[in-house]
């Protein structure tokens, strides 16, 4: 097991390195420059390029960047907040996005599991259909519509929560954004839980458990749930990462200075260092989460563990 983890960590580092290189090359291909294309002349832009070292070849810049990254220096921003250290910009906003994302994930997981279990236990009854319908609506209505609806009715009309994010009440003012963000994960998790659980409940070993006389709901759920959750965790991994790295539309609507908005703006403004830093953070979180999920998966599910050892 330990050897496997070590192997995976090394591979992950290599993958991150490749991602960084690909990002660097792609940034070069993007149209336009980080500077004010509307008003600057080509001569002025060339001057700025030289000043920031952007006129050096791609590979040179890449190795310079890697070297600096190891020291913790992620470069400076060219367009969004000129000459700001990118590491500072990303750090501040990442914290807020993680807060919203974690809240959304919690709400989404609890609500999704409850909805999915409820539907599966009442398979083919009206409760099942209702839960399915709720879950379908949750996915087909975009998050920004949900966000504005919530904002309008709960914050504006009823005044139960603040309309926008504000730093003085960080937790309370993030509840609405988290709920809006959690609608889609809830739907996905509910759907997945429901179909997995139906599968499991139809399988032979549950039949065995029932025929053994275990009528106690708790015992059945204990057996069923454990088997259901295994693949559900695989689904939750990417959902979690997407939530943690912020949703640009939710951040825009609630005025949250998060990392989702930062990355979109950086790409549109050609702010290379910020884009690369944000994309790198996202990939890092994704790879770590996937590694964690894979290991967890192998640990929980005995069938997979056996398979791995055979290899």
């Amino acid at each position, binding site marked *: 097991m330990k050897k496997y983890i070590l192997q995976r960590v090394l*591979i992950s580092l*290599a*993958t991150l390195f*490749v*991602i960084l290189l*690909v*990002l660097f090359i*792609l*940034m070069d291909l*993007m*149209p336009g420059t980080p500077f004010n294309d509307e008003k600057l002349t080509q001569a002025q832009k060339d001057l700025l390029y030289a000043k920031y070292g952007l006129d050096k070849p791609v590979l040179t810049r890449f190795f310079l960047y890697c070297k600096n990254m190891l020291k913790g220096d992620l470069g400076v921003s060219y367009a969004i907040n000129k000459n700001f250290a990118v590491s500072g910009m990303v750090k501040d906003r990442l914290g807020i996005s993680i807060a919203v994302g974690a809240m959304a994930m919690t709400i989404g997981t609890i609500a999704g599991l409850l909805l999915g279990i409820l539907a599966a236990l009442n398979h083919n009854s009206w409760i099942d*259909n209702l839960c*399915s*319908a709720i879950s*379908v*609506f949750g*996915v*087909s*209505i*975009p998050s*920004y*519509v949900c966000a*504005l*609806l919530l904002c*309008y009715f709960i914050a504006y009309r009823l005044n139960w929560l603040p309309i926008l994010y504000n730093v003085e009440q960080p937790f309370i003012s993030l509840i609405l954004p988290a709920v809006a963000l959690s609608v889609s994960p809830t*739907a*996905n998790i509910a*759907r*997945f839980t429901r*179909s*997995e659980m139906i*599968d499991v409940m*139809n*399988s032979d070993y549950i039949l065995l458990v029932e025929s053994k006389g275990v009528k106690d709901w708790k015992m059945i759920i204990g057996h069923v749930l454990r088997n259901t959750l*295994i*693949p559900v965790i*695989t*689904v939750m*991994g*990417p959902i979690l990462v997407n939530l943690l790295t912020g949703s640009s539309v939710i951040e825009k609507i609630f005025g949250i200075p998060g990392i989702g908005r930062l*990355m*979109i703006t950086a*790409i*549109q403004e050609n702010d290379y260092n910020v*884009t690369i830093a*944000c*994309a*790198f953070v*996202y*990939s890092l979180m*994704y*790879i770590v989460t*996937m590694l964690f999920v894979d290991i967890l*998966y192998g640990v929980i*599910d005995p*069938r*997979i563990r*056996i*398979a791995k050892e055979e*290899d």
Partner: protein
Amino acid sequence: MPNLDHDFHHDDFDFAHEEGAKLIDRTYSATSYAKDVWNNFKKNKGALIGIVIIIFIIFMAIVGPGMNDFTYKQIHGGQECLVPRVPGLEKLGIFDGYHNGKDQYAEQDAKDVYYWFGSDTQGRDIWTRVWSGTRVSLIIALAAVVIDIVIGMVYGLVSGFFGGMIDSIMQRFAEILNGIPTLVIVTLLGMVLPAGIVSIIFALMLTGWIGMERIARAQVLKVKEQEFVLSSRTLGAGKFRIIFSEILPNIMGQVIVTSMFSIPNAIFLEAYLSFLGLGVPAPMASLGSLVSDGYKSMTTFPHILIIPVIVMAVLMLCFNLFADGLRDAFDPKMLNK
């Protein structure tokens, strides 16, 4: 000592069946796999309703835009943001063109005009735009599902089944692809591809299947160690035969259901793309772009948003009923019931 005191008379026993009745062998005609699935499917009422509504919507998407005189791009200055007004229903008090208590149509000099779904912020007819947008979105939905299954599921199948080095490489490649922001990919695509449905398909091909492949792979990992696979292998089945005949049917249900959930993502991705210059070019509409345009009027003229959202939600609901029915139909365990 056995109790032999009890006397048995021949009256005590009666034939269970009618004497002389013939025992007829009931034979069942051989049905193919497809027929089995279809029979199973028919039993699911929800799925049937789903299919019927989908067919209705497809019909409307083809016929709807032609049902009135407006086109999807005709701009009518001075007739912006009118609420729906339907000729027959207006006498009933609904859909009569009144917004906030005032007769919009009278105020904006449009007494003889009827917009069945209302008009948008530039004075274009929403009825026509919604149905021609549905056309585009249906094509995208189909493309999304096909790509999900053809690329995502197969990728996950192969990766999960072979394991080891192949799995590792394929997963790393997926991670790298996932690490590049969608906006970057799409901007670069936009520089080389012309706008249109082909560009959406390309964009989906590059980004849309990663979620599915992880799920497919997880399912494969679960199924591949089961005994029937082992028995197949023992009987000498080749690798690809195992993948496609043994494993695939068992994960198909889950895959279909999951692929349905990638449809809204594809539709919203198209809206995002058309904002970036790919996707269907303006002024052509798609449900996704109608929704994102309607959002801006949500607090002032909600009808511009609500109508496309309802169409999309109904479409999704039906796709899901259909997928559920399909899944239950395909499930080998249910086939014999």
